[in-house]
C-alpha cells in the first residue's frame, strides 16, 4: 500500500507539470484552433531564463521566476501578433506550418542564447517530509502546490472575470461575441499571454525538478497534446484530469509493470480512453 501511495505522489508532481503545459495548449486550441507546437520550446525558454537570472546573476529565485513569467507573457503576445495573426484567416495548414517553424526558431534561439548544456535550476529545497513511510520531497510539494494554485487562478479568471467570460464567449461563438461588443482582436493576445505564462511556470518546474536541455521541450509538448486528447480538446477540466491521469499512470506503470515501457503504457491508456470515449475524459460528445 505504501508503495502504491508513493507512486501516486510521484505521479501527481509530474502530472502537475503536464497539467500546466496542457492548459496552455488547450486554451490556445479551444479559442483559436491553433496547435501551438512551439509551446514546449517557449516553456523551456522560461526555464532557461529563470536559471540565467537566478543561478548566473544571483537574482533571488522568486524574483527571477516573476521576471520570467512577465517576459513569457510579452513573448506570448509577440508570438500571436507576429506569427499567428497574419495567418489567422488563411487555411489551417498555414498556422500549422507557422507553428512548426516557430518551434524551430525558439529552439534555435534557446540554443544560441543559453547553450547546449543541460541546466538544473537550483532551489535549495532539499528537505524531505515523511508520513507513514510515504515521502514527499519539499521541492515536489512546492510544485504540486504551485500547480494547484495556478490551476485555481486560471479557473477563477476564466469563470469569474469579464475577460474570462469574453474568452469563453469567443470560444463558443466568435461572431456572436463580436455582436456583443467583445474586442476579438484583444482576446487572442490575452490568451497567448496566459498560455505562455503557464508554459513558463511549467518550464521552471521541469528545470528545478529535473533538467532543461535541447529537445526536452519537444517531449513535453508531445505529452501536453496527449493530455489534451485524453482530457478532451479545448476542455480546461479535461486538461487537469488528463494531466494527473497521465502522470500517475506513468508512475504506476514504471513501478509495477516496467520502467522500460513507461511512455508506451501511458499512451496505451490514452488510446484505450479514446476508444471508449472518443471525445476524451471531459470532452463534450
Amino acid at each position, binding site marked *: 500500500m505504501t*508503495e502504491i501511495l508513493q507512486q501516486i505522489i510521484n505521479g501527481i508532481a509530474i502530472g502537475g507539470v503536464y497539467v500546466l503545459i496542457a492548459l496552455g495548449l488547450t486554451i490556445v486550441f479551444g479559442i483559436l484552433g491553433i496547435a501551438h507546437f512551439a509551446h514546449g520550446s517557449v516553456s523551456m525558454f522560461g526555464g532557461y531564463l529563470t536559471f540565467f537570472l537566478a543561478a548566473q546573476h544571483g537574482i533571488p529565485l522568486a524574483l527571477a521566476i516573476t521576471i520570467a513569467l512577465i517576459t513569457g507573457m510579452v513573448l506570448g503576445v509577440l508570438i500571436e501578433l507576429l506569427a499567428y495573426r497574419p495567418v489567422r484567416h488563411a487555411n489551417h495548414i498555414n498556422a500549422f506550418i507557422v507553428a512548426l517553424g516557430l518551434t524551430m526558431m525558439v529552439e534555435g534561439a534557446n540554443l544560441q542564447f543559453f547553450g*547546449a548544456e543541460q541546466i538544473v535550476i537550483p532551489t535549495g529545497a532539499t528537505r524531505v517530509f515523511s508520513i507513514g513511510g510515504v*515521502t514527499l520531497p519539499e521541492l515536489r510539494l512546492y510544485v504540486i502546490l504551485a500547480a494547484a494554485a495556478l490551476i485555481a487562478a486560471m479557473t477563477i479568471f476564466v469563470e469569474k472575470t469579464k475577460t474570462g467570460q469574453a474568452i469563453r464567449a469567443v470560444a463558443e461563438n466568435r461572431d456572436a461575441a463580436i455582436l456583443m461588443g467583445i474586442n476579438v482582436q484583444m482576446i487572442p493576445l490575452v490568451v497567448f499571454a496566459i498560455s505562455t505564462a503557464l508554459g513558463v511556470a511549467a518550464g521552471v518546474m521541469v528545470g528545478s525538478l529535473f533538467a532543461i536541455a535541447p529537445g526536452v521541450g519537444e517531449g513535453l509538448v508531445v505529452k501536453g497534446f496527449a493530455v489534451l486528447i485524453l482530457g478532451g480538446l479545448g476542455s480546461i477540466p479535461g486538461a487537469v484530469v488528463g494531466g494527473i491521469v497521465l502522470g500517475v499512470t506513468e508512475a504506476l*506503470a*514504471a*513501478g509495477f509493470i516496467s*520502467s522500460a515501457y513507461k511512455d508506451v503504457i501511458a499512451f496505451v491508456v490514452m488510446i484505450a480512453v479514446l476508444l471508449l470515449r472518443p471525445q476524451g475524459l471531459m470532452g463534450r460528445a
Partner: protein
Amino acid sequence: MMGKSLLTCSVAALLLGTGSLAAQETLKIGVADALTGGAAVYGLPQANSVEMAADEINAAGGISVGDETYMLDVIVYDDKANPTEATNAVRKLIDRDGVKYILGFCCSGATGAIASFIGYEDAVMLVGNAAERSITTQGLTNLVRTRPPADYTGAAAGAFVARQGHKRVAVLGALETSFYASYVEAFEEEFAKSGGEVIAHEVFASKDRDMSPQLTKIRAMDPDALLVVGYVEPAAFAYRQSTELGMDIPRYGFTSGSEEQFLRVATTEQMEGVWDLRPTELTLQSTTDAGLAYHEHYLERFGDAPSPSSPYAYDQAWALKHAIEAAGSVDDTEAVAAALRDLKIFPEAVMQYRPVNGKMFDDNGQAYTANGAFQWQDGHWVFVEELPSDPEAYSEFLSSLN
C-alpha cells in the same frame, strides 16, 4: 652584374624559403565526439583535451618524421553520440578533409558504427571513453582504445561490493546500453561467487530524469545496497531522488562523472557516501605529475576541471605522436597502426596504464588502467582503494573472443 647577384640572392632566398616550408608541415587530425546532447559530459572534455594535447605537442616542436616536422591541426565534429551523426562526421573527416587519424569517441553506440567500417579505410581510429567490449574484439588492426572495456571493471566492482558484506543488491541503470549491461553482467557473475544476488534490474534511458518510480519499487524490495550504472546526469538524478525517497542504504555506481558534473544536479549532502567503481582515470589524490599538470592546464585553459575520463583522449594524441615518429611516416597508416601496438607507455600519459607484455596496447589494440573505488566524502571524490584487476588475464580472454 648587380642584376645577376640580385637574381642569385632571390633564388637562394626562394630555395631557403621552400626548404623551411618543406621542413614544417601540417598534419590534420580529426576528432569525432559528442559536443552536444546528453553524452557531451564525456565528449566535450575529450575534444578539449585533444586540442590541448595538440597545442602542447606543437609547442614542444611538433611531430618529427625524418627531416620534417609536422604541426598538428585538429578538426573537430560533433557526433552527438549518435551512430548516424558519427558516420557522417567520420566520412567528412576522411573524404572531405583528408584526415587519416581520428580521435575522440566517447560513446559506444556511435563508436561501434564507425568500427564497423573503419577496417576498410586508409585511416587509424583511436577510441577513448567508449567502453563496449566488442569494439576491440573485431580484429581491427587500425583501431586502438585507451579505455578498458566495461566488463573488465564490472568484475572488479562485483568483488568489491561482495567484500562489503552485501548479499542483496538492486541495480538501476541504462541497461539497454550494451556496455552498461556488460558491466552489470560481469558484476553479477563476480558478486554471485560470494553468495550475493542482484534482486532487481531497473532501467532508465539516457534522457530520463525522473527515476522516482523505479527507486520506489526498489525501496519496497528492501535491498542491502543500490548499484547505479549510467551517464552522469541520470545517475546524479538517481542519487538525488534516492535520498528524496529516504533510502538509507549504501549506493554504488559506475559513472565516471566529475564533482562539478554531479553538483549541477545533486547537493553534496545528497551525494555523501556514494561510491564510484570505475577505472582509476584522473584522480588528483593518486595521479602522477603528468596528471597534475594535465588538470592544471585544462582548468586554466577551459575554466572547468577536466572530467575524470577526459585524459583517455589526451593520451590518444600523445600515443599518436609517438607512433608516427616510430613509424617514420605520416602517410603509411598501416605502419602507424603497427607502431601503436608496439608502443610502450610514454611519460606524457595521464592515465596510469597497466602494460600487457610490456606494451601500452595488447594485440587487440586494447589498453588497460587500474580500477579503483572512489567515495564521495565532504563534496569530493576520494580515492579509497585500488580494485584487484588482472589485465594480462583479461587480455587473453579478449583475444579468445576474436
